[in-house]
């Protein structure tokens, strides 16, 4: 027990230490950006104002909504597509399974940096530049291979005799899956959802070239922060924005984790 607590402390320290420095910097006066006093000094809220200041051309507020919208859409679609593909791979027998699963995995092998130019041209040709779908569709495809593989590996571990029993009781394939398997797979599905959401939340390369001022996600908005002068990197404002976008996300994930898992499990017991 003591060892567990010590380990937990080490983990928390390791994860939080750089974040601590981020917060200290976020609250520090811009004139003291490079001060290395390890505790908060020259405390100010000005950096947070800068981060949200549309007068300075920073669109963080709008960008957070954009990221939330893009992330939610990507997660839902990737999970829907991912669960159905994973179900087929884990549960059905068909020819060409090896090739299909190989092709899905291969989508994670091409250097992302080389995708920008072709996608830019494709989306320009069909008039999608700067639209939400131009950001959502690539993000879905970046999240999909991992989603499919993770879900396949989890689904394969499920007690499928329960599903068969449900079908003998008169459930359709879909009903059996939803009532019997989903509740059991809930933790895995939820983990996959977090993976998909954060992969979309973190996406920067593609969005930096395909988004517009109105649709840009937080990563692009933060990278667009400008210092007071050319060459000046606005670290304090970047760290303030980083803090703003990280803390709610962590809280949100923790709340969802309890609610969703609890809800799904409860439904399972009833069904």
């Amino acid at each position, binding site marked *: 027990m003591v060892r567990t607590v010590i380990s937990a402390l080490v983990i928390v320290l390791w994860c939080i230490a750089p974040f601590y420095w981020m917060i200290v910097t976020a609250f520090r*006066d811009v*004139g003291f950006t490079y001060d290395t006093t390890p505790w908060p000094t*020259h405390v100010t809220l000005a950096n947070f104002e800068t981060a949200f200041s549309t007068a300075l051309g920073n669109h963080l507020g709008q960008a957070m909504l954009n990221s939330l919208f893009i992330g939610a859409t990507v997660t839902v679609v990737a999970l829907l597509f991912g669960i159905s593909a994973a179900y087929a791979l884990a549960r059905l027998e*068909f020819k060409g399974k090896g090739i299909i699963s190989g092709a899905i995995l291969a989508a994670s092998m091409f250097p992302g940096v080389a995708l920008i130019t072709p996608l830019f*041209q494709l989306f320009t040709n069909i008039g999608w530049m700067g639209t939400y779908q131009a950001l959502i569709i690539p993000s879905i495809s970046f999240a999909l291979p991992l989603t499919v593989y993770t879900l396949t590996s989890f689904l394969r571990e499920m007690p499928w005799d329960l599903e068969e029993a449900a079908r003998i009781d008169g459930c359709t394939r879909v009903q059996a899956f939803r009532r019997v398997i989903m509740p059991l797979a809930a933790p895995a599905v939820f983990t996959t959802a977090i993976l998909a959401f954060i992969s979309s939340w973190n996406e920067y390369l593609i969005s930096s070239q395909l988004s517009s001022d109105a649709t840009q996600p937080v990563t692009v908005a933060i990278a*667009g922060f*400008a210092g007071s002068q*050319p060459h000046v990197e606005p670290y304090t404002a970047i760290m303030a924005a980083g803090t703003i976008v990280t803390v709610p996300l962590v809280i949100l994930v923790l709340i969802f984790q309890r609610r969703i898992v609890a809800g799904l499990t409860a439904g399972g017991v009833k069904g």
Partner: protein
Amino acid sequence: MKKFRLVSAAGIAVIGLALAGCSSGSPSGGSSGGPAGANLDSHGPITYVQGKDNSNVVRPLVDKWNAAHPTEKVTFKEQSDQADQQHDDLVQHFQAKDPNYDVVDVDVVWTAEFAAKGWLTPLTGKMKLDTTGLFPSAVKTATYNKTLFAAPQTSDGGMLYYRTDLVKTPPKTWDEMMSMCSIAKSAGIACYAGQFAKYEGLTVNASEAINGAGGSVLAADGVTPTLTSADAVKGLSLLADAFKNGNIPAEAITYQEEQGRIAFESGKLMFLRNWPYVYGLAKSDGSSVVKDTFAVAPLPGLTGTGASTLGGHNAAISVYSKHKATARDFLTFLESAETQKFFATQGSLAPVRTSLYDDADLIAKLPYLPTLKESILNAIPRPVSPFYPAVTKAIEDNAYSALKGDKSVKQALTDMQAAIKAATS
């Protein structure tokens, strides 16, 4: 048994898409009958594209223009703050032949590349632009193949920041500066630093060393590298030797503009080569301990005033613009003395008009202007080459090895020469 037909279907769809997209992927040449000669007389609304508007200069200017030109309104499209991304963003839009990028702000080193790709409208004939009163070196950066392709918009030159409490008169030559390093040593601080991390700034500093010693990177034709000359060796050796004997501190190999500025402002550095932006910050930053104890001087060369590398931006008109007449008028507006003065007062950006550097109002606000003028007058543009990305890579990589002592200066320059040749032939 049912075959899984989907794979082939998807495969065909993919290949079809690829073929459809292929034609737009090839580079476009802007020959005379092409888009370059179209829409020269056409007026109408246009878009101006520029990187982040750091100190709110562009928006007021655009508002002013729009008030005077209600039927030819300018929309300001702001790019990111990072030069590489601005470059890539422009390339993507030009490749897609985007008619909505009418006037674009290009770094001085991109002008030749974009012109050679046929993306910039030559400023000749109807589009001719008056360049009298501008710095000749700035005009040179906008000129490719003897044709003007862009309007110099802002300039920039390196200056030597020095500590007035430690050094009474600034050094005129490199040797003089090195001989003052004992002062720094006894004060317990580092002597000199510039930008030596492996990025564009290293090309700037290495070229300054080479040009300051009378050498050059490319011959006048803009193609043939001239890096194996004795002067080039002498120039780069100045930096390499200073690293070796500690006159440049070892950590300077990690310095970009900001790290050097911070070291100088925290009193840890006696001489700093940097751009004019440092001046205001070192005077006003809360953490600056040198607020009243520094001044600027022209860069020292081998035998006299050194040759700064020229920075700055040019404004160019896309060949795909639908309203080039308006675009040209907007360039004239950017170039005007009034606008140029606004760049200086509002944004502390270096104007391209020489006369403004003698303007008493401006000097009162930006006391470094006379020094900057001398710097820019002596400045040498970086190579005006359509292969600039390869040229700068060759310089960065090899200069970095030489400064770290992993390679002799001679070998580094020989390799630099060969790498530039391989890339540009």
